[in-house]
């Protein structure tokens, strides 16, 4: 089904089976000055699953995603993605290896249309050089049209045909979140990181977004790491959950296991730490 979204992907298949290890996070520690955002955390993400990352505010969830896609550089620990171990990496390198993401605070390109925003998501897959682009007719146009077709499929999938040409700065919040998902999907990601995709949405928008996340996972087989505060959504969508609190990992397992874990219950009920 993946070739549906991406007819001309140049990214080699990694040969990892569904259910095999896609990503290993090993003993990651990250601090900002005196603030320890992440303390010695390890977990993994299997290919094809939806892996939720939950925890109270300030637990270090966003920081964890930032480490995974190379935006933050941890002081200790390693990331192994598709069998390749690394410590330091520029974000655009992570992007070209197939890690795409959305942001807790929408980070769209406000002056550009929905279509251009999503086309930008295909940045790492397009190859025309500057001379071909200057001439336009020929290889550059051909490439542009091939990618446009894929992007139009994403636009159909997310049901945002009507705002194709609208500058995203003018769109309501819920639609912006959807466009941002589209931009991440356009990268044909091997791993999709979603940072609170449903935050600030009303019930109907949340249901739509949940459906899209589930469809992406099931139809395209995309592996997803999902940060979400709404427990109902997490329990419904995710295969496995990792729970963070004050930068530490306090739980890891299926939604049911996590729900019954005493540390997790304490963290959410605000039981004091000692």
């Amino acid at each position, binding site marked *: 089904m993946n070739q549906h979204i991406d007819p001309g992907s140049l990214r080699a298949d990694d040969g990892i089976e569904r259910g095999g290890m896609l990503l290993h996070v090993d003993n990651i520690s990250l601090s900002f000055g005196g603030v320890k955002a992440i303390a010695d955390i390890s977990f993994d993400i299997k290919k094809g699953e939806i892996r939720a990352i939950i925890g109270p505010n300030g637990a270090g969830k966003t920081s964890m995603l930032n480490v995974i896609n190379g935006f933050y550089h941890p002081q200790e620990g390693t990331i192994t993605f598709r069998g390749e171990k690394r410590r330091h990496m520029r974000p655009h390198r992570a992007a070209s290896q197939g890690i795409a993401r959305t942001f807790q605070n929408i980070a769209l390109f406000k*002056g550009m249309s929905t279509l251009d925003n999503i086309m930008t998501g295909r*940045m790492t897959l397009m190859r025309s050089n500057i001379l071909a*682009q200057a001439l*336009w007719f020929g290889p550059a146009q051909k490439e*542009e049209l091939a990618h446009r077709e894929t992007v139009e499929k994403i636009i159909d999938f997310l049901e945002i045909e009507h705002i194709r040409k609208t500058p995203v700065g003018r769109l309501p919040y819920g639609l912006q979140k959807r466009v941002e998902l589209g931009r991440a999907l356009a990268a044909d990601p091997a791993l999709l990181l979603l940072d609170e995709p449903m935050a600030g949405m009303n019930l109907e928008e949340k249901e739509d977004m949940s459906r899209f996340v589930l469809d992406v996972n099931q139809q395209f087989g995309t592996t997803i790491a999902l940060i979400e505060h709404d427990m109902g959504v997490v329990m419904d969508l995710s295969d496995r959950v990792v729970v963070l609190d004050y930068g530490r990992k306090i739980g890891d397992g299926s939604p049911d296991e996590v729900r019954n874990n005493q540390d997790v219950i304490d963290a959410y009920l605000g039981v004091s730490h000692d």
Partner: protein
Amino acid sequence: MLYRETGDFKSNYAADQQTFPIKSERYLFWAAMAFAFLVVPFFINDYWEKSVIVPLLVWAMAALGLNILTGYCGQVSLGTGGFMAVGAYACYKLMTGFPDLNIFFVVILSGGVTALVGMLFGLPSLRIKGFYLAVATLAAQFFLVWLFNKVPWFYNYSASGQITAPERTIFGIAVTGATAPPWATYLFCLAMVFIFAWIARNLTRGQLGRSWMAIRDMDIAAEIIGVQPMKAKISAFAVSSFYIGAAGALYFSVWLGAAEPTEAFGIDKSFLVLFMVIIGGLGSILGSFLGAAFLTLMPVLLKNVMVGGLGWPTDLAAHIEIMLVGGLIVFFLIVEPHGLAQLWRLAKEKLRLWPFPY
């Protein structure tokens, strides 16, 4: 009906990507081009060439360049005058060093040299932004003008310190030098600007243009989705400087014929082009032309009305002009940051609905 879009559905994505997706607009454009290329050359005289149309074309070329850097990629530059000087001096050295080289290639190569210099001065943009980058480009402006004043090699050790363009021909017709006919210099500039406006349009509608705009709108997110900030910024500096350098080459060789750095390439030129881009519309190819046309034609018009028509003194007219431009800059920055190009778009929308708004 003048203008309609209804019923003009796109059957494929290629049609949707055209520069003028609406038929009537496309016809209008080609009619205007036919007029510019086929009719104007028969009527153009020395006054229109030297005071109105060639200046307009040269400034449009420079505005295209600055708009790529500032409007599309979001990097402010106050070095336009200095980069035009690089283009002009490269042009002069090439013309005198290689007398047999066709002037067309001389202008292109001058753009190329300026692109390299622009990349060099663009390096600070990897570290600094906004106001600090503006100051860095200002330093480039003063350094370059100083350099062309100080190093005699650049002006071939001429006693006056001036550079003078020798005669060069295309198809046997002079386009530079004192005897070049107005229609020939006009057509040469027009063809250059036409080709490079088309290239600018192509670069900005493709992947490179999107990487520039992504950096402009949110550089951190751009990097996270796979834009290489260095590649995007340095390519914007290179392409932008190419245009500005080519504009400088035309400015010196075709329009002025002779130039002296402090006078011709001062900081006032940097501001002039910046104002053109702001008034015309940041991030718009059309806006570059509208801005250049506006700031070239307005002084000519004002002068004709105030000095020629009303008989006011020249310096008073000049002051009024400066005040008007200042007022307009403030107006556009506050009220319509997308400039004349946006006003044109809005007017079209009105026209499209008129007379039946539905």
